[in-house]
């Protein structure tokens, strides 16, 4: 829905949230910014969430009751909460993470599934939506300001967040809670971008949108009350790809380069023979079918694109000069090896990299934090590393 413009409606409210001195001359809050209402949990969902939390809190006992053995691969132990979640999903016939009959149906399914237990937590000082210019029409963005903003002596960094979902599914709402966690824990502002999705908008539309959003953020960070010198990119899965590709393209083609990149189990390669892609391609959430479907939607397996660094950044001839990175991978994720490898490659190219593999986690764990404490802890550890690097 478009919002009617009432210039300056929010300016005073936002100004109160900014640290002193951040209000540069001529800065102005986007005219059409509106607060974002949360989604109430239905009573049924509240009950289910209590049950899910109860069960997951006793995951080891539950697994023993179900006579399920701990799972170990290459010295890594699958977290019991993840194992139980996967078992519960399988019980409901959900064997793929993303895939649906059609992109539209998949979007509905994933949205309903992800938002079933999502809550507007942690609380923010403000959450607003507005539109910024984009190459294919205006882009909707959601801006998070954590409570830390009013305590800090200087403006907070700003992270442009690109959500995951195989370039095909998910939206601002599905990644609302991860964005809040990042903002709260890493003490940053977050600008989450509703980029265009494939297959309606295949490559390069999502990259163009991500780059446009970053360029806008780099230029307008001060206006948002953030530190213009510390504007970074972040993203999970497909969004991690868009984040690092944004950095790479900025480096190559000039213009502002992200201060830092926060990559959560990013897609960075198209090599289907990597051990994790082969060995973990089913039973651990993200499946081979999911990955093939996403690739089909995004690039239609175009051969030239499968070698293009704008799609597979790890194949770039040179990654010299890439911004500092925090890379968070998951031990039971088909994308584990390429993420781990990317950390090495970046380091070899001279980039400061903090890499942390959440050993027992599966792909998509940042969206499970509303029921799983171990998923929440893993995301928080990643955020702590980001805070350390900023």
């Amino acid at each position, binding site marked *: 829905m478009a919002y009617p413009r009432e210039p300056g409606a929010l300016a005073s409210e936002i100004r109160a949230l900014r640290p002193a001195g951040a209000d540069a001359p001529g800065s102005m809050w986007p005219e059409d910014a509106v*607060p974002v209402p949360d*989604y*109430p949990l*239905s009573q049924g969902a509240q009950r289910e969430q209590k049950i899910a939390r109860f069960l997951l809190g006793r995951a080891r006992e539950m697994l023993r009751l179900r006579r399920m053995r701990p799972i170990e691969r290459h010295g890594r132990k699958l977290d019991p909460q993840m194992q139980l979640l996967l078992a519960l999903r399988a019980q409901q016939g959900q064997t793929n993470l993303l895939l649906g009959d059609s992109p*539209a*149906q998949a979007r509905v399914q994933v*949205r*309903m599934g992800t*938002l079933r237990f999502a809550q507007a937590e942690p609380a923010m000082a403000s959450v607003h939506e507005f539109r910024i210019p984009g190459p294919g029409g205006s882009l909707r963005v959601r801006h998070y300001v954590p409570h830390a903003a009013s305590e800090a002596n200087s403006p907070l960094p700003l992270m442009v967040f690109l959500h995951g979902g195989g370039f095909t599914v998910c939206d601002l709402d599905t990644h609302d809670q991860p964005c809040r966690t990042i903002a709260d824990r890493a003490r940053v502002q977050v600008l989450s971008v509703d980029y265009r999705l494939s297959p309606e908008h295949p490559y390069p539309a999502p990259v163009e949108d991500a780059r446009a959003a970053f360029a806008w953020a780099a230029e307008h960070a001060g206006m948002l009350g953030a530190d213009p010198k510390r504007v970074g990119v972040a993203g999970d899965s497909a969004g991690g790809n868009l984040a690092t590709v944004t950095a790479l393209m900025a480096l190559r083609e000039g213009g502002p380069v992200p201060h830092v990149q926060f990559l959560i189990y990013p897609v960075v390669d198209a090599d289907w023979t990597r051990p994790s892609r082969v060995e973990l391609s089913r039973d651990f959430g993200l499946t081979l079918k999911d990955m093939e479907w996403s690739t089909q939607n995004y690039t239609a397996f175009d051969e030239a694109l499968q070698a293009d660094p704008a799609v597979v950044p790890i194949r770039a001839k040179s990654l010299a000069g890439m911004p500092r990175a925090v890379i968070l991978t998951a031990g039971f994720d088909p994308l584990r090896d390429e993420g781990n490898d990317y950390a090495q490659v970046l380091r070899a190219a001279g980039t400061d990299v903090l890499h942390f593999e959440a050993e027992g986690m599966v792909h998509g764990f940042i969206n499970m934090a509303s029921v799983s404490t171990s998923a929440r802890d893993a995301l928080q550890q990643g955020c702590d590393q980001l805070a350390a690097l900023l």
Partner: protein
Amino acid sequence: MSAVIVGSGFAGIGIAIQLKKHGVHDFVILEQAGDVGGVWRDNTYPGCACDVPSHLYSFSFEFNPDWTREYGPQREIYAYLRRCADKYDLRQHIRFNDRVERCIYDERHASWTVHTQSGRAYSAQFLLNGMGGLSRPALPSIPGLETFQGAAFHSARWNHDYDLKGKRVAVIGTGASAIQFVPGIIDQVAHVDIYQRSAPWVVPKEDGDIPAYRRAAFGAMPWLQKAARERYYWTAESRIFAFVKRPELLERFGERRAREYLEAEVQDPELRAKITPDYRMGCKRILLSNDWYAAITRDHVDVLTSGISHVTEGGVVDRDGVERPVDAIIFGTGFEAQNPVPAGAIVGRDGKDLATCWGKTPRAYKGTTVAGFPNLFLLGGPNTGIGHTSMIYMLESQFTYVLDAITSMKERRVRAIEVRQEHQDAYNERVQAKSATTVWGQGCRGWYYNADGVNTALWPDFTFHFRRQLKEFDAVAYHQEALRPGEDVRTLWVRTPDGETEVAHGLSA
């Protein structure tokens, strides 16, 4: 919160009572006629009655212990609705004799502006559409009808000034209305020609008087009436099992019973052949009657099945070229169920017209909300109809959903909601997939279906499944638009040629 309610039938009166019970008084009800009652005000033909037991076909929050018959006659249902309107002081909210012409969504104020025939414009945050699918009479376009010199009227607009005594009458249609009014007029008229397109399945109506002692008991012990209502509900709901799960059972039990009844009532083999349906029972409305067959077997009744070619000044000519002189034509041709909203009547975001958007396939999310039409709630929308039990049950399920939506919006400072297109599509795919396996997915024609044979009218499942889905407002399926700090939602306003004024509690002129 403020609302404009269109129509004062069961839907409009019901939601208005619920709004009041929840402390919302800021609403008007716009009614084109001079009284409440909807179809129960309009259908005054002889013999008009409900074909759902009245203890079920009434509000669960407003029991009536005084139904005199199992299947209440029209005048009792009409009186019931009038009593409801009086009891809850609804009449002061109603603007009678003012037809809604155009409802337009105003994005800037997140409100609906409703223009009426009298030149007024009401504006409020919500538009609650209680225009039922069976409110606009459907008239067939028959060549020569305009030249007809006798009386001609639709059963829902019965001409009580016209004395049928000793007249020759043509009845067009053999649906739920015709099978009630033909027995109602049969003793007065000289002759009736019944023009039938397809024969209805007819089963006996287990009707009867409710004796005074039972009425008194219901009055003294409401729990007893509640128990009776539950019994009616589950009896009706148990029938849907065959419709939904095992259509073949309808053949084995339902059709056999109906055929036995027909053969017992009708001896003439030629007539029997004409009035034996040639389609699976249940895919069109099953009709309940104890006097239809008795009426059409009378000597002064002809059942004609060749179709109508045209109408002359003094008679009706069938497809075989035979002209039959008549004094009056009565249309029992049903309603514009497939076009529940006239073109141009409801205009949503970006100037989108609801009737145009729908085309021949009306679609909504949970029968209630439509993508592109924020803050609009349809009461009795697409795929909420039922053929086996009380429509009031479906409406009350929607009332719960609507009230939860608007209270949750108020609590969370949301000024507008609009269902997401992809959620609406996914919902309808599920409904259609479900429909395909039921008796309504077997290629029938009729007012349940659009021109392509798609079921757009009926809920193809148990009604308690519908109720469960509408138990709580599921904001996740919606776009939400928040109020800005300091902003408040649109209160009820009326604009007359004299100027614009706020309406306190929907009460002033």
